[in-house]
């Protein structure tokens, strides 16, 4: 069970033993010879495993992807897969790692800053092997519960969410998730069931140890063996009496990763990370064997449980180490193996966006695509800014124009269109969960919802700065009819006001972060603690709603004497505290004012960057941080410089959204073609080419209506209302199309609620459903073309422009002529019309 021979080596061993028995094998140990420890060997390159009966000596030869080549003394070589190692085979892994750390670094080239940040590697192989073993984490003196024992539960995943860290525990034993409650864990281990989990009289018989080593039935299996440092730490702690820590035990204050950045040239290169923790007493130590490792993109850079990074496909990603409540990331760049990168000479930046995007692309050795054609650009920007495709006339005029700044002029024209405000009101309607209900008992009344929607439209029509837009809502007081922004506090799931849900929404909407994990435990993948969470909730504990002059109306106010939220762990009252900020003095005042001031202050980079990122995502389908409302240490920006600069610009523009949008749509980055090149085909996060995006549900429906000139009728709305103008979700009016195309149900603030996935049912609905068929039947476009006796070439061109915003190619025209009667009949045009509206080119933005 606890044999140090790796399981994977056991089949190998059989053959090795045979070899050893052959007299011709040089240097084979005699049978019965006691196992040799690595210290006694003369050649440091030979590593030994033994299960007490057989022993094997092997020399590490080389690395090949996930495989390490070893040569046995017999001369035979074997390939061992490092990724297939079981936890019990830790000794092998450590030795292999020792080998790797002293030979395999640095394979990377290019960055000199990287080379200097790489820790010096020991030259003696055995020194490398022993220094990389986990032995150093076993304390020589007194074992501390918090400093030494708790990290073992973390590292061995004992306290993870799927095991004993689950809220009810596992099989009757509970640990706090990732160890946020050390005092509770100590109680449950030592005192909850006296004499069961810890055996002070016979420490090695403690259930805690027997379970971890798999010596007794354990649902979680074998976690480590008796030789491991993890076992030694736990055993030593029990032998010393399983003592609790004194009150002044040093706490972890942060972790550090080395190297801070990784750069690889080509796949299958390796580099080991080291992680150090610093403590409140000023000490620090290497906790590499105690950290957990994760990568954001396995295909670009994989990381194993020992912190060894292996390069993969060309691109950039991040790897992370977690320890205690801290997570730290290191960016990884993998360059192509062959180093013949050239930047296209015509790809010159037009503004700061291009400079930052192109700098990152050059660093990653990714070439941008060429520039989009006028038709492509016109369609893209018109859909993005107005939610509608360009009309025939607009296309003809724009393409015909020879003004050198016609694209900039177009941006200004579109930004001034009233549809611009409708697009943003609908987007914010999704995020603000704007819903109306005719039964005011089960939700906010329709009248209030309509007023809120009108208020949103007005804000964007007047280009109200985003800081004022948010401030007005967060600090709102009054009737939700006459002060519609107070509906910020009425759009609630099931109509219930809950300070926690409100705090979560505000953090997500205004700061782009999700703090809800910290309700029950410190955020496992970010820096937010339960203290942060409940301090933030306290800004909303005084919000009250009362019936106003009529039953449909709410009056929102703040009870300034309301007590703050209580900490979940010990019921401590938590005074209002800003996330990552201080505790404003709000005694006897409405704390939401202080909150709104802080949220929207120019110094609050979280606010500015997350607002700018929301704007950015409208034009690229994804944010620089994506999802746009889930910024965390483990989900960093794909281009940090760009992310920060967008925020800075928004501040400099005094939160003028239109000005930032103008920068975006006039950048070369936005105008790149969607056609990928060999160099950028794998890139989906660095904006090296325009993304191919399925039209959002409402835009798709409006585009069909607009192309066919066949209006969609909405209940409770006058004729001529576009889907984009509906105050509520169209799916609530029974629009199957919108539900099928993933329109947000507005039940949460999650930006991903507006689902842009492509599904089979969407395709089937377009082919067989009533939307396109119905619109074509309703449409007068073909009728008018026939009535006007339009020549077939012009008629086909008209249909192409209306749907695909481009003229048909000669080939396409030829195919139509071949299939259609002469002259083409209504049926021929309707069929072409149907085919165009069903095409991928129509349904996607590119």
């Amino acid at each position: 069970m606890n044999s140090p021979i790796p399981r994977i080596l056991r089949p190998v061993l059989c053959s090795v033993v045979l070899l050893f028995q052959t007299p011709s094998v040089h240097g084979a140990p005699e049978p019965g010879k006691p196992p040799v420890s690595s210290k006694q060997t003369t050649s440091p390159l030979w590593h030994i495993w033994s299960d007490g009966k057989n022993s094997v000596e092997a020399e590490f030869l080389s690395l090949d992807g996930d495989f390490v080549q070893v040569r046995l003394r017999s001369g035979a070589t074997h390939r061992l897969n490092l990724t297939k190692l079981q936890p019990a085979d830790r000794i092998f892994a450590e030795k292999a790692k020792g080998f790797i750390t002293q030979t395999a670094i640095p394979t990377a080239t290019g960055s000199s800053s990287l080379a200097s940040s790489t820790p010096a590697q020991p030259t003696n192989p055995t020194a490398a092997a022993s220094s990389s073993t986990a032995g150093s984490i076993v304390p020589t003196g007194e074992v501390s519960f918090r400093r030494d024992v708790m990290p073992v539960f973390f590292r061995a995943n004992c306290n993870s969410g799927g095991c004993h860290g689950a809220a009810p525990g596992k099989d009757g034993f509970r640990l706090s998730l990732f160890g946020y409650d050390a005092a509770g864990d100590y109680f449950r281990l030592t005192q909850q069931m006296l004499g069961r989990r810890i055996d002070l009289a016979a420490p090695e018989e403690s259930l805690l140890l027997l379970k971890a080593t798999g010596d007794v039935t354990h649902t979680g299996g074998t976690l480590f063996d008796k030789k491991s440092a993890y076992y030694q730490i736990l055993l030593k702690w029990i032998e010393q009496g399983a003592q609790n820590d004194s009150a002044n035990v040093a706490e972890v204050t942060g972790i550090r990763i080395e190297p801070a950045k990784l750069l690889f040239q080509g796949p299958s290169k390796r580099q080991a990370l080291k992680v150090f923790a610093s403590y409140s007493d000023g000490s620090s130590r290497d906790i590499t064997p105690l950290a957990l490792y994760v990568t954001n993109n396995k295909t670009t850079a994989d990381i194993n449980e020992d912190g060894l990074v292996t390069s993969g496909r060309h691109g950039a990603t991040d790897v992370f180490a977690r320890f205690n409540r801290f997570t730290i990331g290191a960016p990884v760049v993998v360059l192509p193996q062959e180093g013949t990168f050239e930047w296209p000479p015509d790809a010159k930046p037009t503004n700061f966006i291009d400079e930052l995007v192109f700098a990152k692309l050059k660093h990653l050795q990714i070439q941008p695509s060429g520039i989009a054609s006028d038709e492509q650009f016109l369609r893209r920007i018109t859909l993005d800014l107005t939610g509608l495709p360009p009309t025939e006339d607009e296309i003809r005029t724009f393409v015909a124009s020879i003004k050198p700044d016609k694209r900039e002029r177009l941006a200004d024209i579109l930004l001034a269109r009233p549809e611009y405000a409708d697009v943003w009101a609908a987007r914010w309607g999704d995020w603000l969960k704007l819903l109306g209900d005719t039964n005011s008992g089960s939700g906010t009344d329709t009248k209030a919802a309509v007023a809120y929607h009108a208020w949103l439209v007005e804000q964007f029509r007047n280009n109200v700065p985003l800081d004022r837009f948010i401030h007005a809502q967060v600090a709102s007081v009054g009737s939700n009819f006459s002060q519609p922004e107070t509906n910020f506090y009425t759009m609630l799931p099931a109509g219930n006001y809950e300070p926690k849900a409100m705090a979560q929404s505000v953090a997500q909407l205004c700061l782009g972060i999700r703090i809800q994990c910290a309700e029950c435990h410190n955020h496992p993948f970010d820096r937010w603690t339960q203290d942060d969470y409940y301090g933030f909730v306290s800004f909303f504990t005084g919000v009250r709603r009362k019936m106003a002059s009529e039953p449909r109306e709410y009056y929102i106010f703040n009870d300034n004497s309301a007590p703050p939220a209580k900490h979940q762990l010990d019921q401590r009252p938590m005074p209002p505290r800003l996330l990552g900020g201080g505790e404003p003095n709000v005694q006897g005042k409405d704390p939401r004012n202080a909150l709104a001031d802080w949220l929207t202050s120019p110094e609050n980079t979280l606010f500015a960057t997350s607002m700018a990122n929301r704007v950015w995502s409208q034009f690229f389908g994804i944010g620089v941080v994506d999802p746009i409302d889930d910024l965390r240490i483990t989900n960093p920006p794909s281009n940090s410089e760009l992310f920060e600069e967008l925020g800075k610009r928004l501040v400099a523009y005094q939160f003028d959204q239109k000005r930032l949008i103008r920068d975006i749509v006039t950048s070369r980055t936005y105008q790149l073609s969607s056609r990928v090149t060999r160099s950028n085909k794998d890139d989906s996060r660095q904006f090296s080419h325009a993304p191919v995006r399925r039209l959002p549900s409402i835009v798709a429906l409006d585009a069909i209506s607009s192309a066919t000139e066949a209006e969609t009728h909405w209940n409770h709305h006058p004729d001529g209302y576009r889907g984009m103008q509906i105050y509520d979700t169209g799916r609530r009016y029974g629009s199957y199309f919108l539900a099928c195309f993933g329109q947000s149900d507005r039940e949460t603030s999650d930006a991903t609620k507006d689902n842009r996935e492509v599904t089979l049912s969407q395709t089937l609905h377009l082919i067989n459903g009533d939307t396109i068929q119905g619109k074509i039947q309703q449409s007068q476009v073909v009728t008018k073309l026939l009535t006007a006796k339009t020549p077939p070439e012009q008629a086909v061109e008209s249909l192409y422009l209306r749907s695909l915003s481009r003229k048909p190619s000669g080939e396409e025209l030829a195919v139509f002529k071949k299939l259609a009667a002469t002259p083409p009949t209504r049926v021929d045009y309707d069929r072409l019309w149907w085919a165009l509206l069903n095409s991928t080119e129509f349904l996607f933005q590119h």
Partner: protein
Amino acid sequence: MTPILSTALAFPLKRSRFLAPITTCLLVLSGIHSTQAAPPNWDDHIRPILKNRCFKCHGEEDQKGDLNLQTLAAALKGGTSGEVLKKNRPNSSILLQSILHEEGVEKMPPKSSKLPDEEIELIRQWILAGLPEKSGSPSSAPATFAFKPSNPGTKPANPAMPANLPALPSAGKRANPVTALASSPWAPLIATGGHGQIAFFNAETKTNLGAIPFPEGIPQVLRFSRDGSTLLVAGGKPVQSGKVVLFDVATGKRLAAFGDETDTVLAADFSPDGKLVAIGGPNKLVKVFHTADGSLAYKITKHMDWVTALEFSPDGSRLASGDRAAGIYVWEAATGGIAMTLAEHKEAISSLTWRPDGNIIASASEDGSVILWNMKDGFPSATLTGIHTPKPQGKRYGKVPGGVLSLVWTPEGHMLSVGRDNAVREWDSNGGKLSAVEGLPTLPSRVTGTFDGKLAVIGDAEGRLLWWPKGAKEATLTP
């Protein structure tokens, strides 16, 4: 005064804007009675709350779920979910569960936040006090039974004392907590469980009388037979093996062994006539064996969690068992047929112990309470809450773990309890407070009383014994 009154009336009335009218109303009442006087009653306290919060849907006009709370009589009838109020049992009352928004019941009031804590507490105290209708309603107090000592056995001519047992070997590097403790019913003899052994002590001289080995593991239960001649030892190795072994007290000889469990035995007892042995443990089963041939008499599969406590009634007709999920059942000892379900605790049951006259069974729980159950009707006759809650050290918020770890009746009809507040307490036959020692040096894990009623013996988390002459100011460690 019944223990209920001692705990019931300390309801903390924090002043709150919302509660102002109710608080005022209470203060008026307090002027008439003493502030410690009557529990909340229907007319003065409960009906006003319900009127304000519930009558709209559960009143004369509308009876959602067929529930009408307008009058006490109607409220007692309950609705489609059955009774919503159970006398003396707030935790089992659906009405309280609903307003506490507990899992598995409909949350009331629907779609809005919980009632203020003060109102909930009033309702809880009212149920606990037996649903009194008016101030001083006489019938509301739970029934109590005077304890009439009745000797459950005949004193043997020479009560067994161990003789010539091997000396107590060293228990290991450090001692485990005392996980099992028992007192002979007829002799000054204390048995205590350690790692792999059972040690005997003379309760008069407090000296060690040797030990018998228990290679099966850690003893979890020790019980003397009615005549004091046989010792039942139950225990084992966690997640490995469990057994019950009977020893001859005088010689230390093994007499019989039962069970071949895959985890340690956590609860065990033998019937007063010695014919049955019952065991329970992490497999959630209660197994009852015939001692004559070791055959299985029956198996009880009703427990949903580890069986943590078991005891036969003094007349041998009933068997009570309790589990880690707070469930308690009383069974017909001969057949295993169910007699009662005693649901009211919120956390693991640590002890179940019958009053020597068999009229009451007392249950102790990690929820910090002891309940005395009337065995005639299965209702609590006294509920002692928070009796082992540690005093807060410095400024502390929230719930402090305050479990009762061990509870036992003494032959004269008193109870002894120890708990997580490092205290040992003595109670009278109906749960009235007698005396206590607080501030024991370590966590007390088990308690028992000597045969003559003079001493309480406490086992602690460091494997030591403390001796407390009942009523004395302190307990002393074994010299």
